[in-house]
């Protein structure tokens, strides 16, 4: 198929449609409004349902309802709205329900600003709501990836019966790039046949719930969830750029990953042996990739658009195998390759 030139937000909406998403629930918030706006015309045209909910809380609960019916559905928002969705996400995780949640995040805490930020990393990868659960988190770095990973998000949500989050920011959401589209596929109804609700018909009634009061059942369920998260480790994805002969590896995700790539190209031209590891799955975190590089004698630093969040996962992955520095770009400021040059050089030189 030929390429189209679209915003990251539109790419996400198109990715959802092409993955067989037939229900969208959302509430307006900047900078992700292109998603509901696109869906409001495209989804009914494709035979699906678009609902502008009364709140992010309601939208996420509609997602829960659609997920229980085994339907591919999505909600999207930005940071403050994502906080409101956490209640339903926790219930979905506790009820083994699939669903795709998009966070085109912005600066915080509180109302913050509408500019890009990676301040929601912890919220995304550590659960976000109450209880001991995780969601799978995919972080696109290009508009093509925003499209591809949204399609993947639906497959993963149903494969693991778990919420999956796309974590982008105002840069990924608002920038435009060429995108090569895939053939649209309809949802395979078999993927939810064994558990979805549709009326009991000729079988026994099913109950989907997260309440587990009988002795031992909650513990057992938590064990089951942890097994699921362990199994999801096989979904780890990351990109490496010029790591082979690098002394220092910059670890950065999403928009910051690609901006850092420009800095690394420039530093390479100056003869500095630096490379990039861009995690594409944030949960599961590509720990193995970091460990392998550490065993080859590399040093690390994370660059984040926050005051230091992913660095904790990187250090946990490395577990003392190699040092891992950190540079945090403040929210409210647009990051450029120039901003990272000094911090990378400083880290690079500190080890020589």
């Amino acid at each position, binding site marked *: 198929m030929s*390429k189209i*030139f679209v915003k990251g937000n539109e790419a996400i909406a198109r990715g959802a449609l092409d993955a067989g998403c037939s229900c969208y629930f959302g509430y307006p918030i900047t*900078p992700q409004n292109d998603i509901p706006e696109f869906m409001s015309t495209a989804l009914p045209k494709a035979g699906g349902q678009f609902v502008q909910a009364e709140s992010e809380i309601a939208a996420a609960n509609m997602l829960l309802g659609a997920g229980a019916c085994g339907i591919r559905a999505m909600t999207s928002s930005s940071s403050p709205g994502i906080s409101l969705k956490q209640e339903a996400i926790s219930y979905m995780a506790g009820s083994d329900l699939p669903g795709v949640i998009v966070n085109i995040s912005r600066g915080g805490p509180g109302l913050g*600003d*509408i*500019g*890009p930020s990676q301040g929601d990393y912890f919220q995304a990868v550590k659960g976000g709501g109450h209880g001991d659960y995780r969601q799978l988190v995919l972080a696109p770095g290009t508009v093509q990836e925003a499209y591809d990973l949204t399609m993947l998000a639906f497959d993963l949500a149903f494969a693991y019966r778990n919420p999956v989050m796309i974590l982008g920011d*105002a*840069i990924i959401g*608002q*920038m*435009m*790039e*060429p995108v090569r589209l895939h053939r649209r596929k309809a949802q395979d109804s078999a993927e939810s046949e064994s558990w979805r609700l549709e009326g009991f018909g000729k079988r026994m009634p099913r109950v989907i719930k997260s309440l587990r009061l009988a002795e031992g059942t909650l513990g057992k369920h938590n064990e089951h969830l942890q097994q699921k998260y362990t199994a999801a480790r096989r979904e780890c994805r990351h990109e490496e750029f010029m790591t082979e002969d690098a002394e220092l590896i910059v670890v950065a995700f999403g*928009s910051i990953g*690609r*901006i*850092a*790539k*420009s*800095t*690394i*190209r420039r530093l390479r031209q100056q003869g500095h042996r630096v490379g990039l590891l861009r995690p594409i799955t944030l949960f599961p975190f590509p720990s193995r990739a970091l460990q392998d590089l550490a065993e080859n004698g590399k040093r690390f630093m994370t660059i984040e658009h926050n005051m230091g969040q992913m660095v904790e996962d990187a250090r946990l992955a490395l577990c003392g195998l190699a040092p891992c520095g950190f540079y945090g770009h403040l929210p*409210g*400021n*647009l*990051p*450029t*390759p*120039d*901003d990272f040059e000094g911090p990378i050089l400083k880290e690079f030189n500190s080890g020589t």
Partner: protein
Amino acid sequence: MSIYQDAIIAGFGGQGVMLMGTLLAVSAMESDMEVTYIPVYGPEMRGGTANCTVVISDEEIGSPIIRRPLSLIAMNRPSLEKFQPLVRDNGVVLINSSLVEPDLTDNGRIRAFSVPVNDIAAELGNLRLANMVALGAYVRITGIIALEAVIKSLSRVIPERYHHLLGHNTRALEAGAAEIRDKYPSGG
């Protein structure tokens, strides 16, 4: 050496700056180049100017946001004052000399090109074509994309209800390129 160009395109809201950026970007895509376009958010948004950044390369593009661009299209004076100091040495600065005094350019450090895009657009019968005149001039200066590719991409970027104006836009693009050819025979 690989092909690489980046541009900040800036002007008043309403001057069609975003359309210039998307047209340049789509033309690059149609020319099988890698390209990114981003309307700039944040503090840069304030002060009545609109701007976007386009990056074009034959290699995978890293940052879509550029602090120190290789080229600048300044459609008004505030845009020149804001972004000219950031343009890299020997970079291209194209100004709309209908609204900006050419002697405000930092000629010598950068390569300045002055095109009275509003006047040329007015001569063509529609002031709103000024952005197309400027883009025609820009692709002629930088040579990053063939003018024909830009003309061919017009129909993909301009909404269908305005397709009766495709001819006007084509002539505006050509007029901008012609101005550079005539005025800067060696530097174009």
